[in-house]
């Protein structure tokens, strides 16, 4: 994708912008650098719907980059084209208020949107973002829970909620969030590792065992380059061995040595000079 940007051709820039929109990703620096000239000089090469999607995309990139003059210019054009009463436009105005740290104004706008459409997804998400920015994590958690009652399948929202709980060290509360994501994406090895990492933070024999199990499943789903899972099995085994219930458990020792051997093979293949660092990990007997 980086190559597409560099070519600078209209077709390649359009393709890059479309790719980001479809994947709901942001690359604000490049979107601004290449997207703004596209709409300023070559807007006639874009079809009408695409043109205004690009306007919105470049506007958001300008907000992210704190380029206020471009943000104001584009918002002005968007309002003139679509009107300030459009719910989508109102959301963009709210985002400008957020960027200016006028959180009360932003919340007022999102409240107005939700009064018209109580299930307006973007307005609900922006409300959550405002609470987070304002440092009101309790408020953000409440709003996220309300949001997830309607949009149960929104993986990003579950991740966001888990992230807030982890930041507050409320690890047990983060676990059900990952369980929902696992239900929706049972083949995603990353999620099993993340779930295991939080289980490890909960601590205790049972949690360490569950962590080891989930790290092992993550590795089973994807072996290639999954060092995080191997280290996770290693550390879970060490922690299990340090508990009263787990001390001397043969299965645990077997898994520990297996994980250590796998890591040794990985280091032999990738960078043998670092093999010696694995000597640091000793199973406590």
């Amino acid at each position, binding site marked *: 994708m980086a190559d597409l940007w560099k070519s600078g051709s209209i077709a390649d820039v359009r393709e890059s912008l479309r790719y980001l929109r479809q994947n709901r990703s942001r690359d604000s620096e490049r979107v601004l650098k290449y997207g703004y000239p596209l709409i300023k000089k070559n807007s006639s090469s874009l079809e009408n719907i695409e043109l205004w999607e690009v306007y919105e995309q470049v506007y958001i990139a300008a907000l992210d980059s704190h380029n206020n003059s471009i943000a104001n210019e584009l918002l002005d054009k968007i309002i003139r084209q679509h009107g300030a009463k459009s719910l989508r436009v109102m959301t963009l105005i709210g985002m400008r208020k957020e960027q200016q740290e006028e959180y009360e104004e932003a919340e007022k706008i999102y409240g107005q949107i939700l009064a018209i459409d109580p299930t307006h997804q973007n307005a609900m998400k922006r409300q959550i973002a405002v609470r987070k920015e304002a440092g009101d994590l309790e408020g953000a958690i409440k709003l996220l829970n309300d949001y997830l009652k309607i949009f149960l399948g929104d993986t990003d929202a579950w991740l966001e909620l888990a992230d807030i709980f982890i930041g507050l060290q409320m690890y047990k509360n983060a676990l059900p969030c990952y369980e929902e994501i696992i239900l929706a994406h049972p083949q995603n090895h990353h999620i099993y590792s993340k779930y295991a990492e939080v289980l490890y933070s909960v601590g205790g024999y049972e949690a360490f065992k569950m962590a080891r199990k989930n790290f092992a499943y993550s590795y089973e789903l994807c072996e290639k380059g999954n060092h995080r899972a191997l280290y996770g099995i290693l550390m879970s085994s060490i922690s299990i061995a340090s508990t009263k219930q787990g001390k001397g458990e043969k299965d645990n020792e077997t898994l520990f040595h297996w994980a250590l051997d796998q890591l040794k093979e990985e280091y032999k293949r*990738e960078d043998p000079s670092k093999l010696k660092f694995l000597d*640091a990990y000793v199973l406590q007997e």
Partner: protein
Amino acid sequence: MVKYLSDSEKEILSVIYRHSLAHPSQFVFGALLGRSNDSKVTIESAVPIHHGHPLNIFIEVSLYQVDFVAKSKDLQVIGCYFVSEDGNPTMSNAVINIAEAFKTQFNNAIVLSLDLESSGQKLKTKGWSSDSGKSWREISDLPFSGEFDSIHDDKKPSDFLDHLENLQVNWVT
């Protein structure tokens, strides 16, 4: 009372600052290595460990390796550094959790942070000491300060998380 010194303050500040720049709007933390005698702790280097919310597993797994490397250089783990998401140096519960883990390595552990919020031309720092195992107290005479220009370097430091993605990445040397 222990005194904290350093002959490598620019290098240490550079590592910490660049680690935070590599992960803007994320919490970052790392280890501090050094030497100690009865009344003096000399901080020799900083080792980036993690970016994002610090979970126990990453603190523990990296401490094993950092300690191993420190001993091989006749050094010891003498504390940690952190830079918070908003650049505000506060001993939050998450920071205390990390700091307590480092205190198990060294009783007079130091916690160092960058105060990006109030830094102007000059980078400001804040530090706390575990004061021989008791609660964390702020250190008034830190040896760390620096002009931004003198510590600027384009190289992005790699941490243990980066190493997990690619084992060829050097995160601790």
